[in-house]
């Protein structure tokens, strides 16, 4: 036990999870998944494969039919595809929600908000309301609110899915930069295979009817990653191709 090959600590363990509503057929059937501390796991799959539902079950927003979700008493940071900001509140006040719920003393708010604003590159926007911000900026406010809460695990449900291609790439780079600095566990749901391969340590492929895991791929690319350079790497193209064939095999 002298420190050699200490197994990584498990943040989240899901065993034989089954989820369904009423008497209808299962939305998720027999899904097992573990996430290690500091690991970045992406889940890809077609619409209806239950990947978003899986996140909601982990977050406790949707009950499971059977199986277990073990996570200890972790602070969950959830991020929706929509920004879910309070429309009447300013950027600063929206970010303050994360600080308030994390129990950060009021006196520390101003400094922390300024710090987070510059982290997500929104300096000078603290008194804007969401309606005055673009979709990408709103999602960055959401990200800042999430970071303000300092979660132990990030559950991200297509957080950049509604953004245009270019903004999406930039947001992915921001996320990697922030994650590299803090190394919290992330479960990142997306239908964009390239995004998943760019960001994650491991990509889980799900299929629909019923929602289940059909493949798991370790993404061994070195970190820190440069998303732009990575995309021209032949290994990247090969991995994307492999996942594509996983998906087309089951359809």
């Amino acid at each position, binding site marked *: 036990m002298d420190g050699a090959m200490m197994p990584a600590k498990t943040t989240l363990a899901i065993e034989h999870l089954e989820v369904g509503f009423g008497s209808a057929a299962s939305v998720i059937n027999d899904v097992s998944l573990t996430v290690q501390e500091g690991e970045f796991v992406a889940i890809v799959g077609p619409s209806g494969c239950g990947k978003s539902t899986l996140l909601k079950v982990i*977050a*406790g*927003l949707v009950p499971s039919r059977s199986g277990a979700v073990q996570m200890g008493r972790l*602070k*969950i*940071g*959830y991020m*929706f595809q*929509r920004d*879910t*900001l*309070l*429309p*009447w*509140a*300013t950027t*600063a*006040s929206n970010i303050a*929600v*994360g600080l*308030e*719920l994390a129990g950060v003393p009021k006196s520390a708010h101003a400094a922390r908000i300024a710090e987070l604003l510059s982290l997500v590159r929104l300096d000078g926007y603290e008194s804007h309301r969401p309606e005055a911000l673009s979709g990408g900026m709103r999602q960055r406010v959401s990200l800042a609110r999430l970071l303000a*809460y300092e979660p132990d695990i990030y*559950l991200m449900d297509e957080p950049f899915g509604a953004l245009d291609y270019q903004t999406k790439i930039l947001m992915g780079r921001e996320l990697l930069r922030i994650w590299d600095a803090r190394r919290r566990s992330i479960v990142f749901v997306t239908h964009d295979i390239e995004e998943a391969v760019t960001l994650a340590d491991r990509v889980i492929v799900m299929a629909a009817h019923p929602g289940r895991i059909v493949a798991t791929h370790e993404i061994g690319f070195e970190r820190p990653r440069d998303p732009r350079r990575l995309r021209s790497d032949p290994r990247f193209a090969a991995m994307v191709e492999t996942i594509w064939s996983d998906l087309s095999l089951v359809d």
Partner: protein
Amino acid sequence: MISLIRLRNSMILQQTGFLLVMIGAWEALGAYVLDPFWSSRPSLIAQRLWFLTKRGDLAWHVSATLTEAGLGLSLGAVVGVALGLLMARYAKAAKIAEPLFMGLYSLPRVALAPLFILWFGIGLPAKVMMSFSMVVFIFVLNIVEGVRALDRDPIDLMRTMNASPLYIVRRVLLPAVLPWIFASFRIGVGLSLIGALVGELIGSSRGLGWYIERAAGQLDTTGVFTGIVILVVLAMLANQVIVLASGWLTGGRA
């Protein structure tokens, strides 16, 4: 910004002008066309207003009516908002109570006036209850609608972050229904005055309703119109206060 202010000033000018033209037309009609016995005249009403003010009658009646309407409106707001939030929270119970609730809502509340007088006498409480019964439904229905229109995702998000129900009420629910509360106040101002008036018409010893009723009994058209003019002015002022308060509260909230 400057052109905006200019625009607003010119609007106020036009509004005042329109009002003056209408008053002038009324005066002319009363002087040359109609018998002022039926329609009175602005100049006669102005004289009466001056007379009532000097004798202190104006303050005496206005304060009575305003107290009744104000108390009824406040009580209606507090009970209505609380009831609305409860009905939104316990949707199933609300569904069960809905037919009775809508029945009461559709009931002409005037029908309750004799009952209130029987229960509370001809003093202040009967008028407050009358006024309350007019406005409370407005608040309940608006709040229920406001909560229904609410975006659930921020609430779900805060739940995953272990937010207490109190935090969600304070940070999401109340700010979200605030515009609906103000909308209720705007409708409620007029209705609360109706409630107070109806109560006064049916049985009272002071108030604008009582004054109008007595003037009519004496075929004193000028007295009736004086009462009506005061009511219109009061309603306009109250409306302005609500608009200003809502602009101030919703504009400055963070």
